[in-house]
């Protein structure tokens, strides 16, 4: 609960300072993760789903939301191939489901992915298959974005995670 609210506080601050002003100025804001991340993560940690949705009702609904869907095995393989150390909270180690970080990650992120499937339906996110090559995915992304905007100028304002 506290974890959920801490993220919401950070989100509110960034929404008000970094998202809303450029939107008012007519710019395009690219957000790497959004409230949907909180919906998936907090529900997996046992927070009431409806409560989190109501909490974030102050968020601006995006014009387009892309969800990069990947099977859990691919996700684990990619992370381990880069030899990154799995992060404590990203692996849901705080939940005590497994003492093994990889196993815990698999269990936790597996449940997070299930939550995302639900969210995709509820909020009509556009699903991008994240298994093909980067170029292949970019083609899909460009096609989706092109349906919503016609512009020659895109500004990246915030690349922090939610």
């Amino acid at each position, binding site marked *: *609960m506290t974890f959920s*609210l*801490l993220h919401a506080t950070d989100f*509110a*601050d960034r929404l008000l300072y970094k998202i809303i002003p450029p939107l008012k100025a007519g710019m395009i804001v690219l957000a790497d993760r959004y409230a949907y991340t909180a919906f998936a993560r907090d529900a997996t940690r*046992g927070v009431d789903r409806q*409560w989190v949705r109501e909490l974030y009702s102050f968020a601006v609904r995006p014009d387009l939301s892309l969800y990069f869907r990947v099977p859990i095995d691919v996700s684990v393989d990619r992370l381990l191939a880069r030899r990154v150390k799995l992060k404590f909270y990203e692996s849901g180690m705080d939940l005590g489901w497994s003492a093994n970080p990889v196993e815990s990650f698999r269990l936790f992120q597996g449940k997070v992915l299930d939550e995302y499937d639900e969210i995709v339906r509820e909020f009509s996110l556009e699903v991008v298959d994240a298994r093909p090559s980067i170029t292949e995915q970019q083609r899909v992304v460009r096609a989706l974005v092109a349906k919503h905007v016609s512009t020659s100028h895109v500004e990246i304002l915030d690349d922090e995670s939610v």
Partner: protein
Amino acid sequence: MTSPSDAPDGANGNGVAGRYYGRAIPYLPIEGYPGKLIAIEGTDGVGRTTQIQLLREWLEVRGYGVVETGWTRSPLMQPTIELAKSSNTLNKLTFVLLYATDFADRLEKEIIPALKAGFVVLTDRYIFTALARAGVRGIDRQWLRNLYGFAIAPHLVFYFSIDVKSLIGRVLQSRGMDFWESGMDLKHGDDIYDSFKTYQQKLLREYASMADEFHFRVVDARRPVDRIQDELRRQVSAFLEPSEKPAETITAH
């Protein structure tokens, strides 16, 4: 990102004492916990802290285990809140969420464990202060109530009621007017006295509007300390004794 109006009424406790107000914390079931939650509410400088100290001593002499908690006292959030207050860059919505985070931390780490262990929890301010302050600052009331749906309805809420004139006298006699307690962030003007008066008047109206909704027991805070304490003790023992007789029946005065 639903609007509050299309959300179904999430209340499951319906304000029943010792239950969650609205959407619960699913992983922390609290039904049947033996402890009691007593909230002392009221605006700044109304005398809450003094009364809580006296009440605590009295309860302990009678053999009750007592835990105290107060607004923004969470070890996790207090430094952040102080920092945010000093820098004056935070939006009111962000402030509301910071306070809620502090409250969630204390609820999970202090209040719920103490209730589980059978303590009497005395809380110096509760969510009503947050609701009043945010209400004055124009935050959507329904959203606030949903937000604080994870709060536990106290067994007793004592609301220390006072009029602005008496309050001004008390505050000036003790520690003086402070920036936030005067609502200077609302930019009612540069004069701290006028701002304090306007802001506290609005706050008092907010508190008063919650009295029925949250079953406040209204205590006239203009009376002398002992008189108020007597009234609190009378009401607290009338509530506690039917469920558990005190270990020590001598009343400490």
